[in-house]
């Protein structure tokens, strides 16, 4: 069984939870155990949050697009946005804060089996794709 789902929302923090809710729903249909679900929610939130942080530098404009690819063997998620990407500095960064973009990317790489970063084909935005294999032994 396989499926592709798309979710698009404005680049605002109050919508972050929607990405996680989709994963919770999908875990009822696909063999995603609680640990894998937690890792995917974390990776997705880190990727989406990075998009939204950079959107605030543009007065909150823009949108985040999430593509979920599901199969019995793996879950792949892509997050597209219209910002500069994980490596770009954030203008309104709290000087007391961690480098949350750098830490977020490190977290994604730690909990996923594959991670790729890139740009929109037309160069207009950032893209990240991460994959988590659904090992039968873990499920």
């Amino acid at each position, binding site marked *: 069984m396989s499926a592709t789902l798309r979710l698009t929302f404005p680049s605002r923090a109050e919508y972050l939870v929607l990405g996680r809710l989709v994963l919770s729903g999908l875990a009822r249909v696909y063999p995603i155990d609680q640990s894998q679900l937690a890792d995917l929610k*974390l990776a997705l939130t880190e990727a989406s949050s990075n998009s939204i942080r950079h959107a605030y530098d543009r007065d909150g404009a823009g949108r985040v697009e999430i593509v979920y690819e599901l199969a019995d063997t793996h879950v792949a998620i892509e997050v597209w946005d219209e910002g500069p990407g994980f490596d770009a500095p954030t203008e309104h960064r709290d000087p*007391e*804060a961690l480098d949350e973009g750098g830490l*977020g990317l490190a977290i994604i790489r730690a909990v996923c089996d594959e991670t790729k970063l890139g740009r929109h084909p037309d160069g207009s935005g950032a893209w990240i794709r991460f994959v988590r294999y659904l090992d039968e032994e873990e499920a």
Partner: protein
Amino acid sequence: MNFSVTTERRDGTAVIALAGEVDLYTAPEFKQELVRAIEEGAQSVVVDMTDTTFIDSTTLGVLVGGLKRLRPSGGRLALVITDPNIRKVFDITGLDRVFPIHETRDEAFEATPARTP
């Protein structure tokens, strides 16, 4: 579970209970509560995540910021964590070596006494 943050005082220690999901949207409220507790004189802080269902790097940033505010006066910040998925976020970032992590509020409180002025 909806997000909520509540604070109670036990001697000079502030115990902040975080419930629900803490992310970029809800973390500012947590930060506000943590900063307020420290500015009101808490000498140590225990953040109880027993009912926390999600955290991310934004949450970690708030905790690190709180610790930075406490350290100059010798204050400490400890955590109560029972969910292995919450604990994992600290483990993979190395912050399990920065924050003492306990399984109960009483254990955290005993290990994080407020300094005698």
